[in-house]
């Protein structure tokens, strides 16, 4: 097998194996149809759902919009704050332990509070997802900024760099990879949080559909929405990767 073909063959093989086990478990009746829909039934339901007006499209749109808004808000606050706090030893000592301990809290307990204050619409979902997205990004950015080589900054100062020039030309390119990976972690968490919040309460989005189908004992429907949620995760990650390629060109100008 040549190396060009190894990866695609491995991927297809792995997915095929999982599907085969899934089929085996449901066809032989080892797992009851109520708990596990067969791949065939799931596929039929997917076809039905996608052919059925815009149920799928509007649910995906809602979840994407909520996750995206939460991600933008969290990034817009976390990255500048992380850079500012990371650049100063005093600010680092004050905020880093605080942020690390907050990030370990099960913030989902705040959801009832958020729902009561903001309402059970999109707003509370965005708020909770933004909280979950914020912590990995701010901690990652702060650490990366703290680790910037002071020698590189001193050299920039001798060449007359102003503070903003130092941030733009020395700090940004240094912290970029770490900030990007923390953003990817934050984005994943944000998507999970959005879906979970929709699941808890609300009337739209992928999480809501998962809730409706599972509570209605509509197992093929539930599995169809699980497949949709997985596809959504893949799409979100691909979009993020494409954005990073553009951003990289900007930072390493």
């Amino acid at each position, binding site marked *: 097998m040549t190396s060009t073909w190894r990866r695609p063959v491995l991927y297809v093989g792995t997915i095929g194996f999982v599907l085969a086990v899934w089929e085996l478990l449901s066809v032989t009746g080892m797992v009851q149809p109520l708990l596990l829909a067969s791949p065939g039934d799931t596929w039929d339901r997917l076809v039905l759902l996608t052919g059925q007006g815009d149920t799928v499209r509007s649910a995906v749109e809602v979840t994407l919009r909520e996750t995206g808004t939460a991600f933008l808000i969290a990034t817009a606050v976390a990255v500048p704050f992380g850079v500012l706090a990371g650049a100063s030893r005093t600010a680092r000592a004050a905020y880093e332990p605080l942020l690390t301990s907050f990030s370990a809290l099960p913030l989902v307990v705040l959801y009832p509070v958020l729902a009561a204050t903001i309402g059970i619409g999109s707003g509370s979902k965005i708020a909770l997802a933004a909280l979950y997205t914020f912590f990995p990004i701010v901690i990652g950015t702060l650490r990366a900024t703290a680790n910037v*080589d002071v*020698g*590189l900054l*001193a*050299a*920039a*100062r*001798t*060449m*007359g*760099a*102003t503070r903003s*020039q130092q941030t733009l*030309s*020395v700090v940004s*390119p240094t912290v970029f990879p770490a900030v990007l990976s923390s953003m990817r972690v934050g984005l994943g968490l944000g998507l999970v949080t959005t879906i979970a919040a929709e699941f808890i309460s609300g009337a739209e989005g992928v999480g809501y559909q998962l809730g409706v189908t599972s509570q209605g004992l509509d197992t093929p429907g539930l599995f169809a929405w699980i497949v949709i949620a997985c596809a959504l995760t893949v799409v979100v990650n691909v979009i993020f990767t494409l954005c990073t390629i553009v951003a990289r060109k900007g930072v*390493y100008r």
Partner: protein
Amino acid sequence: MIVVDRNETASVHTDEPPARLNVRDVTLSYGSTVAAKDLTFDIRPAEFLSLIGPSGCGKSTALRAMGGLLTPDRGEVTLDGTPIGGPRPGDISFVFQDLALYPWRTAVRNVEIALQFAGIGRAERRDRSRAALAAVGLGDVPDKFPHELSGGMKQRVAIARALVSEAPMLLLDEPFAALDELSRFRIGEQLVRLLEEQGKTVVFVTHNLSEAVFLSDRVLVMTPRPATIKEIVTVDLERPRRPELMRTPRFHELTDRLSALLLETEGGT
């Protein structure tokens, strides 16, 4: 092109009063550690001055104060009569021991960054940076990244970056420390020729005595921390400096004298 500009600058400076940089009663400290105490010396225009002394004696700290990166606790550093008060990119360039090259920038763009901070336009900074690289013998590798270059080549990129701004004064902090003896010698010889041509004023921190003698007009010997001045030795060897000088009796007398002074400073503690 750069060479011509430098010669003009050099001729202007000969009309000026003798000292370019004055270090007056300077005391420097890191937290509670006193790194250098009551340093007083001058640097004359177009002079090559080396600082030598035991490891960790505060030579680099003194150099940072001369470059405006550190404010003295007491005393004052003045450039052409005015207190230095911070980095002066138009007057003073720095080459650091660890070179401080930006790993995500190619050689030419590492040189360019000095001009970018000075607000010079893209086309001009590209041209001047290529010329500066060519002047240090790196005309053929402008688009390589630092990790693709040898130690000696990285060294030259750092020197090109210090030269491109055309600042008349250069502060070099053990720039050849990481090089093997042969590269060290080659780059040193090339550097001395370039700086002689351009009439630069240079302060050079080093551990290597023959390097100090070969390159310098005067060598300032420092005591262990807190650094004070043990003695300033004048190197009365002719310029331009040629490698053959290193085989003359006078060269050996001078290196012997420096090593004797260094041994004395160590015995003093």
